[in-house]
């Protein structure tokens, strides 16, 4: 009797499950978490009657690991750090894009980055969003003047009140800037010095976490300083937590930018290109800039007209020329240096 009941239950559940997995055309995109906001994706899905499957990741290494574990044709759209585009091009991952269909002329000039995005005159990706990994802090609990000097991140003045964003590239970049090394010129011989400063920082920090736990830590007052923070942490919270602020220190800040491209092995390149165009459109850019996971500047200046004054203020739209001038890109190490950096980072976590 019970067996029969269990059988009915089982059948009902299986049917519900299969019904849920209805088949439509789909587009597979490998993205940072800001692209998973339904407010960004759903307009595209409706317009093209497709389903966009999103796999989110943090860090190019993770993304390449995922691609590594996949089969050709699995992926259609790739969102990747701007500095890592050459790596992806080297690996033959990206397909050429029709440059004339992209709004390159509307981008902030610093974000065009032809040395990254094009090779031999062929365009492989385009910038879509950017921001800074600098220092976020709680204005009520720290002296804002202290935050303008990068050395505050490894000093002991705010010991136990510092959180560090768990991504090795920007943080190593910040430490390098603090030591007067340009991010593009970091070499293996700089690592010992960087390592020492990282360790000092670890001794004074309370936690090291990903996007969310970092946001959470500073938003809930768990810590007062977030190393690696920036507008991506504070912009979305300005109405509720106006005391959260961020600054580009004297030594400069690390700039991150995301680029978007189409996978060379994609079997739906046209649809993928439509998606890229949608993301780069003024509406798409505005939605991406204010998406739920984190806010940041759109690469396309035309997005301004789709953002409210308050949103532009939260993004500090008007200060961008200054920030862009004072910031340097993420470090982009080659494979060997990258492995060494990751080892240092693991050591840093374990400390």
């Amino acid at each position, binding site marked *: 009797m019970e067996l029969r009941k269990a059988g009915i239950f089982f059948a009902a559940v299986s049917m519900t499950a299969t019904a849920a997995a209805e088949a439509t055309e789909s587009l597979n995109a490998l993205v940072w978490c800001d692209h998973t906001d339904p407010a960004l994706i759903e307009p595209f899905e409706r317009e093209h009657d497709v389903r966009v499957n999103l796999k989110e990741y943090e860090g190019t*290494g*993770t993304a390449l690991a995922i691609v590594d574990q996949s089969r050709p044709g699995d992926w259609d759209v790739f969102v990747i750090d701007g500095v890592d585009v050459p790596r992806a091009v080297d690996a033959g991952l990206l397909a050429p894009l029709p440059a004339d269909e992209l709004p390159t002329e509307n981008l902030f000039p610093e974000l065009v980055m032809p040395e990254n995005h094009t090779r031999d005159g062929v365009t492989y990706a385009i910038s879509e969003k950017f921001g800074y990994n600098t220092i976020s802090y709680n204005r009520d609990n720290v002296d804002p003047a202290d935050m303008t000097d990068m050395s505050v991140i490894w000093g002991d003045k705010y010991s136990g009140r510092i959180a560090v964003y768990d991504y090795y590239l920007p943080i190593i970049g910040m430490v390098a800037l603090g030591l007067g090394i340009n991010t593009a010129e970091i070499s293996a011989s700089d690592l010992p010095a960087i390592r020492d400063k990282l360790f000092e920082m670890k001794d004074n920090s*309370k936690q090291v976490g990903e996007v969310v736990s970092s946001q959470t830590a500073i938003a809930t007052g768990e810590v007062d300083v977030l190393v690696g923070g920036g507008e991506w942490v504070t912009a979305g919270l300005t109405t509720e937590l106006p005391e959260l602020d961020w600054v580009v220190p004297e030594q400069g800040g690390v700039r991150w930018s995301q680029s978007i491209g189409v996978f060379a092995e994609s079997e739906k390149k046209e649809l993928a290109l439509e998606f890229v165009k949608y993301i780069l459109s003024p509406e798409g850019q505005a939605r991406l800039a204010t998406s739920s996971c984190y806010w940041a500047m759109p690469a396309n200046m035309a997005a301004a007209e789709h953002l409210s004054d308050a949103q532009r203020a939260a993004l500090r739209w008007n200060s961008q020329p200054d920030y862009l001038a004072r910031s340097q890109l993420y470090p982009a190490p080659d494979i060997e240096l990258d492995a060494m950096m*990751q080892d240092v980072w*693991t050591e840093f976590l*374990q400390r």
Partner: protein
Amino acid sequence: MSGGAWTRERILALGFVLPALAWTLVFFVAPFGFMVAMSLWRRAGAELVRDWSLVNYLGFLARPHFVEGLLNSIEIAAIVTAASVALAYPLAWFIAARVPAGWQRIALALAIVPFWTSYVVRSYAWTLVLSNKGVVNEWLTSAGLISEPLQLSSTRFATVTGFVHFFVMLSTLTIFANLKQLSPNYARAAADLGAGGFQTFRLVVLPLTLPGIMVGGFLSFALCLGDYITPQILGGNNELVLPQIIMLQLGRRADFPMASALSIILMLTVTLAYLACARWLKLERA
């Protein structure tokens, strides 16, 4: 029943066993074997190199922060196991011996109810309890006991608390089951012969419930050693345990050979713990 004759009944029985056996061989034994092989290969740049060597194991030994990860794992698992059993035993005893028989099921069900919250959510809930603005610090502050919030979150304490919460429930179950299957006459006999409550417990009940303790303890130790979620959510990356290091190899650089080698080291540790437990129980029995 003679040794080797393949009667119809036997062949049929073997037929019944085969599907499960084949399933396990294909989806467990073979992948595991593959993983062992993988641990002897290596990753060079972005390529998988299939030459046989112990380079990953040596790489583990050569990196103090990896070895420390294993030691952290063992330390945390040991603390968690001891704390869980110590907390669970009196509770299990109280339910078995002091709660009226009709209410025992309900008391036990209550003791394991939070087991049914999703595992990921449970760890997350502890961050809400332990953070600087969390419930514990709010209470202590409003009670006037502290002026500055205690640093409870993102510490080993938080990781251990999250684990203990889970394993107290588990150990309560195994110890309760052990206590219930003891004849009440053992305790009666001891009391009858003049043993006080504590003597009865120390000399009779405790030795007879060691199997329950060992089962609960071993399960806690093994599961704790293999878990990634709780230290990742609660530990604040202030120290890494081995599963976190494994996930780093996998997630950030797709270094399957290194991840495999670390996994095998993890498994050997659990196996050693198991052998120690089994040997100890056997000694106890003899």
